């Protein structure tokens, strides 16, 4: 049980590449924080610096109030779950779970007690005497989590633990990780590139881009009020429609929008509208209207995503509940209300 504090943490690789450019973050005791971002945004590097697997170029990492910059991973009281499980292939599941405890000199009786407890929670008791090679991917991931749980660490670090699983198992394990983290109330840092995983798991979400924090907040805050156009595009599926605004004298026009209400300020560079906020048909009170030619319709079951192009060449996606009768090639109008418009300035910052 501990909080984690990052103060202006930086990582510069010997070649001069800056992977993490000054990240400050407070993670409260028992909180589950998800680091999310595209490949190369520095999220894994940041996690590995917390774990002690990467050196910290500048700034400090503190776990439970103790600065751990110079400590070996084993001395940091953390446990990590890896994407490829990283189980010791020549040891039985039981030995895998026991190895870290044995190295710390935990008494055999205590090791056995903790393994039994973890095995019961994770339902891996039947496989305790098997080798990892004899287990399925999902079972291996449970064992990897078991190895983290038996340590009873101050913090769990997850490095894309579900990426190697198939879609169905991923959803199931996602729910399970969440339930487990809640019941153990152990501070957790979870790295993923999957925004859905991030949304569903996080108490707080940290969106990283180019080694910097774009925004920190609860998933719903980030969804409803993205601080930058980057966060807006990254969170939510399908991604938010982002239309570049073209300054035309005093007025601002959008290549994709047939009509934009005056609410759009002169400093707006990009206008964002979520696919679920675009409604088919013309409405007089709409703040935004566009004329579309339907290019493709994606049917995903409970809903359909309609991809359309405006006469000016802009692209828009919108969501229709259920099966849609819209066919490719059709022309139609879509509109959105004023509350649904996200406005971003020239730097990509949110306005208002």
């Amino acid at each position, binding site marked *: 049980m501990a909080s984690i504090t990052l103060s202006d943490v930086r990582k510069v690789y010997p070649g001069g590449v800056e992977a993490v450019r000054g990240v400050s973050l407070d993670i409260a005791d028992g909180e589950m924080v998800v680091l999310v971002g595209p490949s190369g945004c520095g999220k894994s590097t940041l996690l590995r610096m917390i774990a002690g*697997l990467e050196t910290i170029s500048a700034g400090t990492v503190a776990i439970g109030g103790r600065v751990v910059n110079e400590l070996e*991973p*084993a001395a940091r009281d953390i446990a990590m779950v890896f994407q490829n499980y990283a189980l010791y292939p*020549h*040891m039985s599941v039981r030995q895998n779970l026991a190895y870290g405890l044995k190295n710390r000199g935990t008494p055999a009786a205590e090791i056995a007690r903790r393994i039994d407890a973890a095995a019961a929670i994770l339902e891996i008791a039947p496989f305790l005497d098997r080798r990892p090679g004899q287990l399925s991917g999902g079972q291996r991931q449970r064992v990897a989590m078991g190895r983290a749980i038996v340590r009873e660490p101050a913090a769990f670090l997850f490095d894309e633990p579900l990426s190697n699983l198939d879609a169905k198992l991923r959803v199931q394990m996602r729910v399970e990780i969440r339930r487990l983290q809640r019941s153990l109330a152990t501070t957790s840092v979870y790295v993923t590139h999957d925004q859905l995983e991030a949304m569903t798991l996080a108490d707080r979400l940290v969106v990283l881009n180019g080694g910097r924090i774009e925004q920190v907040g609860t998933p719903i805050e980030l969804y409803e009020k993205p601080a930058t156009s980057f966060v807006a595009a990254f969170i939510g599926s399908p991604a938010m429609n982002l239309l570049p605004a073209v300054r035309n004298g005093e007025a601002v026009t959008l290549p994709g929008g047939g009509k934009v209400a005056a609410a759009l300020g002169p400093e707006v560079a990009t206008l964002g509208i979520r696919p679920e906020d675009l409604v088919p048909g013309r409405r007089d009170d709409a703040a935004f209207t566009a004329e579309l030619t339907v290019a493709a319709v994606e049917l995903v079951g409970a809903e359909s995503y309609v991809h359309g192009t405006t006469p000016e060449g802009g692209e828009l996606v919108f969501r229709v509940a259920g099966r849609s009768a819209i066919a490719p090639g059709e022309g139609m109008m879509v509109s959105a209300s004023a509350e649904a418009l996200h406005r971003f300035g020239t730097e990509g910052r949110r306005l208002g």
Partner: protein
Amino acid sequence: MQENRPLAGLVAHLVLVLGVLIVAFPIWYTFVASTHSLQTILSPPLPLVPGDRFLDNYGEALVGGIGQIGGVGIGRLLFNTAVMATAIAVGKIVISILSAYAIVFFRFPGRMVFFWLIFITLMLPVEVRILPTYKVMVDLGLIDTYTGLTLPLMASATATFLFRQFFLTIPPELVEAARIDGAGPMKFLRDILLPLSKTNIAALFVILFIYGWTQYLWPLLITSDSRMSTIVIALRKMVSFTDADTPWHLVMVVAILAILPPVMVVVLMQRWFVKGLVETEK
């Protein structure tokens, strides 16, 4: 491949049986000759079934001592050769594992320099460096010692290379998981790396044991005392240029005895050997 064609199976077996006969016949012939008296061997044709002098010939060779090789018993020579082959195999494996471990898992100044130095020695066979090596051994007073017999053959770029390649296939996350689990470098080597390498070690042991057992040039140079000689050298010394002096029945006994230990090593370690060459347990 699962095929059900009787004719093809028959042909395949014929070819295999023929191959086995070609390989096995000289060995059988050697064994047969080792159980006959010298007179029988020298008056052709040699029978194809073993004779009645098995105990006499083997007893004479093992216990009696043979004139042509300085009166040393074969037992002593087998012991020398076994010591040499085992020491070379074990020594090479230990040194190679440690150097490969250092090169793969540690970052230290000059790492690549060391790697290339080892790599370059691959291009220098024993024969090329044999005279300087001999001079060094003479200066160190290691002529006619087990150290002199084995030490120069121990350093092995090939084995280092093999272990390096194997270590490189170990996922970095495994090393990291071990670090988080509190395993220092020695613990990681002992608890994780060595158990994972055991099939490779077994396969390499078989290959290196046979390599050591069949060494000829180096033992010939480094030993002058017949009591330090190896079985391969002895075999060569027993065959004299004037045919009449050669105790052929004993030569055959020594040949059989020289073959047996490597064969036993291969047979006993076969399971591990094949595993090491075929399987990569992940």
